[in-house]
């Protein structure tokens, strides 16, 4: 019998090594896997590369991980926010590297990783600072920028319900990056509000099929 559900966030993140590339779900705090990140802080992994839409809000979740000095580099679309002080301080001190990526390009680079594509030509960002130095090509009269996949070693995401095969459904706009990060990482860990019996999730409404998920933890 395959049972991907684990007892604790600590158990779920135990093997994340120093230097890992970790995809972190959430848009602001909606979908932020706060308990998994707290477990990762306790676990102690350092020199992480984080891929997430924002660079943390307030003092919890990703902000706390950044504040603890565990993040070497972050790829995100929108670091600067009213409550991104943890990141702002380290960034201004030159102690964290930032790769700013347009949100839709972050999305399609994660999707390319999940779907096994080698690279994609996207129109987004052409002619801007964020495409400087990148290969470009005019296709069908329109300029495009060549972008490469972002593969994660791990993804930490938050879903609503899960089952022991790793199937997931989400809650409202907390879905955001979860499904595309789940498929872009070698090891996806989902925290859920409830682990339900196999067959309880409507097969027509499963958003992330279990094939993309290695571990499920109720938090």
């Amino acid at each position: 019998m395959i049972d991907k559900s684990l007892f604790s966030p600590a158990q779920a993140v135990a093997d994340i090594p120093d230097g890992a590339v970790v995809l972190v779900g959430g848009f602001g705090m909606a979908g932020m896997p706060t308990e998994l990140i707290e477990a990762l802080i306790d676990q102690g992994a350092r020199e992480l590369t984080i891929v997430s839409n924002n660079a943390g809000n307030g003092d919890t979740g990703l902000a706390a991980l950044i504040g603890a000095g565990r993040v070497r580099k972050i790829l995100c679309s929108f670091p600067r926010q009213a409550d991104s002080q943890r990141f702002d301080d380290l960034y201004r001190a030159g102690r964290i590297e930032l790769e700013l990526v347009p949100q839709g390009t972050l999305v399609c680079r994660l999707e390319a990783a999940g779907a096994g594509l080698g690279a994609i030509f996207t129109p987004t960002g052409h002619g801007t600072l964020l495409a400087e130095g990148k290969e470009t090509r005019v296709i069908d009269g329109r300029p495009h920028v060549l972008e490469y996949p972002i593969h994660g070693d791990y993804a930490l995401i938050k879903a609503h319900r899960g089952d022991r095969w790793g199937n997931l459904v989400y809650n409202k706009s907390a879905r955001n990056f979860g499904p595309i990060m789940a498929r872009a990482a070698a090891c996806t860990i989902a925290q859920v509000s409830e682990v339900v019996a196999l067959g309880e999730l409507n097969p027509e409404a499963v958003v992330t099929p279990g094939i993309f998920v290695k571990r499920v933890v109720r938090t």
Partner: protein
Amino acid sequence: MSDGAAKLTREQLAARVARDIPEGAYVNLGIGLPTLVANYLPADGDYFLHSENGLLGMGPAPAPGLEDGDLINAGKQHVTLLPGGSYFHHGDSFAMIRGGHIDICVLGAFQVAANGDLANWHTGDADAIPAVGGAMDLAVGARQVFVMMEHLTRGGASKIVERCTYPLTGVGCVKRIYTDLAVIDVTDQGLRVRELVAGLSLARLQALTAAPLLGGI
């Protein structure tokens, strides 16, 4: 500085933009000022508001006490979902944007150039922490990009320019500019003034604007 011209309030400007959005349009409203446009879409019509964090059919703010942290818009404000709305992930959301499925997006701006170049994400300040979000995707992906902004900066400088000095969001992407003084189309011939607020002459608007304007009302 507009010499008694009836400068539009933020609310009047939002109402003016809303008038140009036809029923049935799929619309993305940027963070800040553009968000106000939603308040002026006719309540008896079907307008489809998209939020890049995975909502279509976004409704107004919830009643106090009914906020849900999992139901927010791109500006991270609490919102609701209309009957007939749907939730989806970021992949689907940006397919909507980049794939040309959004009819109109309304964005704020630092600068708009005479050729339709848009600068709205970065002042270029060495000390600033840049943040771009979905603006570059909306700039290239929406069928029509409307800009909505005050005509002048707080310091009185024109935000409409011959060439953007701030880093670009998108090249030649803006179709129409709504300011508190005028409605201006970006055309192949240049910037064409479509409307002026009461009491403002084209000559006076030109004097306030750092790019050539064409009449055409």
